[in-house]
């Protein structure tokens, strides 16, 4: 009885249970038996070599799979209480926002303001409510000054912020981002990652991030999921996962500080150079 209640309490805002998925035109599954429970307000990192299934998993997290993509879908994905098999994408989209890699191709309106209004317009909201949401989203992301601009004129970093704002206007509790910084220069990348951290901290959003730049994100995420060949091979807090041997063996870009500490044979597991400095008692 108590176990039942404990189980209920531990139900995350996203529950992935025994998920296996194979695209229709593929010979083998892209995801094998994925089990994952994500807590509300968590900042989760998903990473792994190219082809490990990260993008496929993302699309399962907002319902695009199985609703818009054909294939063999086994298992369950429950988002904020809704099973993705039983609810259409446009309903799930009000709980989860998905940001893609290449912002130039996900912005299709003629001005930033209209881009952000697109989502709420689809929901048939009143003009006042749409206006309110647009202003709020722009303020949350810090792009109010760009409202009249045309998306294709903007820099990559600005475009990505517009994409994020456009999703925030849907008021989702969860944001999923598929390598949002891969086309950006390091400064813009840093700016986006900072924004995500603030969204989690100030607005208690659940953030699921696919990212290769592990050195930039290791310090700000709560848990890491490492995938390889369609499976989850490691999951846990970054200081555990990034220091583990299994992760070293699959050849992802481990932060240099981890490599350094492991080579030196130190017992602690810092993720930032300041912490390392403290450990070595370096006088600043």
């Amino acid at each position, binding site marked *: 009885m108590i176990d039942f209640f404990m189980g209920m309490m531990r139900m995350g805002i996203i529950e992935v249970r025994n998920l296996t998925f194979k695209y229709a035109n593929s010979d083998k599954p892209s995801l094998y038996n994925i089990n994952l429970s994500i807590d509300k307000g968590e900042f989760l990192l998903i990473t792994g070599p190219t082809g490990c299934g990260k993008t496929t998993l993302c699309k399962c997290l907002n319902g695009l799979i199985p609703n*818009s993509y054909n294939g063999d879908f086994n298992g369950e994905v429950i988002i904020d209480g809704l099973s993705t098999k039983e609810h259409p*994408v446009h309903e799930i989209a009000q709980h989860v926002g998905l940001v893609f890699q290449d912002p130039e*191709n996900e912005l*299709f309106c003629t001005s930033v303001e209209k881009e952000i209004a697109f989502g709420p317009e*689809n*929901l048939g909201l009143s003009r006042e409510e749409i206006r309110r949401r647009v202003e709020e989203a722009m303020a949350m992301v810090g792009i109010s000054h760009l409202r009249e601009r045309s998306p294709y004129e903007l820099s990559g970093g600005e475009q990505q912020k517009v994409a994020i704002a456009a999703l925030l206007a849907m008021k989702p509790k969860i944001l999923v981002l598929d390598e949002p910084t891969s086309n950006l220069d390091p400064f813009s990348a840093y700016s986006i990652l900072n924004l995500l951290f603030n969204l989690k901290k100030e607005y208690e959003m659940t953030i699921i991030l696919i990212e290769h730049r592990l050195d930039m994100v290791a310090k700000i995420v709560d848990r890491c999921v490492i995938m390889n060949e369609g499976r989850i091979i490691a999951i846990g807090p970054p200081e555990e996962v990034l220091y583990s041997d299994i992760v070293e063996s699959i050849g992802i870009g481990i932060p240099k500080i981890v490599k350094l500490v492991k080579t030196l044979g130190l017992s602690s597991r810092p993720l930032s150079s300041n912490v390392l400095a403290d450990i070595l008692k370096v006088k600043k």
Partner: protein
Amino acid sequence: MKVFYFEYKRESSIIHKLDPRAKLVYLILFTILTVYFTNPIILFLIFLSSLPMAILGKIVKKWIISIKGSLFFIVFIFIFNFIGIFWTTGNIIDTIIISIAMAIRFVSLISIFSIFFLSTSPEDLMQSMIKLKLPYEYVLTFNMAMRFVPTLAREAQTIIDAQKSRGLEFEKGNIFQKVKKYIPILIPLIISSLRRAEIIADAMESRAFGASKTRSFLYTITMSKIDFIFIIICIIIFTLFILIFKDILLHTIGLNS
């Protein structure tokens, strides 16, 4: 390569602020006038009537560029008509008059259309189509296509650069070989557009496209007094032209003047 004579740019002129439906009335009425008359002098007058529109719209420079850009076609139409009519009638004076008329008619049409597109934002155009009860999906597709024109142009240039870097030379070869050389440009452009379409579809769904049958709009267009006045002026000019020049119209329908 400046291809986009018809590209809308924000401006604070009266013409820009007019409801697109009012401008649509202008477009239709004056197009009818242009097609209706065949006398070069009348056609020239109709053409001149776009001048105040261009001036009020503060788009005179761009308007001139549009016309200059179609110079090739104007000359082509003149020559084409010249040869055709002379062959049929043998009458040199008629031939010249009608060829000039056709050329002016073409310029007139270019002028009217360019004023419309230069002063109407794609957003407003889309709104007017919605108000005209066209289905939203088609209107959106049209609008999106316009939005991606600059992106495609940039991509085309990159693709041309990439293929030139592999030794593709556009200048060499006869006409057939030259046309074949566009295949390595068109195919990547088409494939890229297809890939883009898939991503956009995902992005749209992820923002609940199709959630509600009664979609709302942040911005909408409403007709004001100025729009109605403008429409009335257009109708008056239209009627005047028809009434005053009716006789000349009937007169020039036959080829003997």
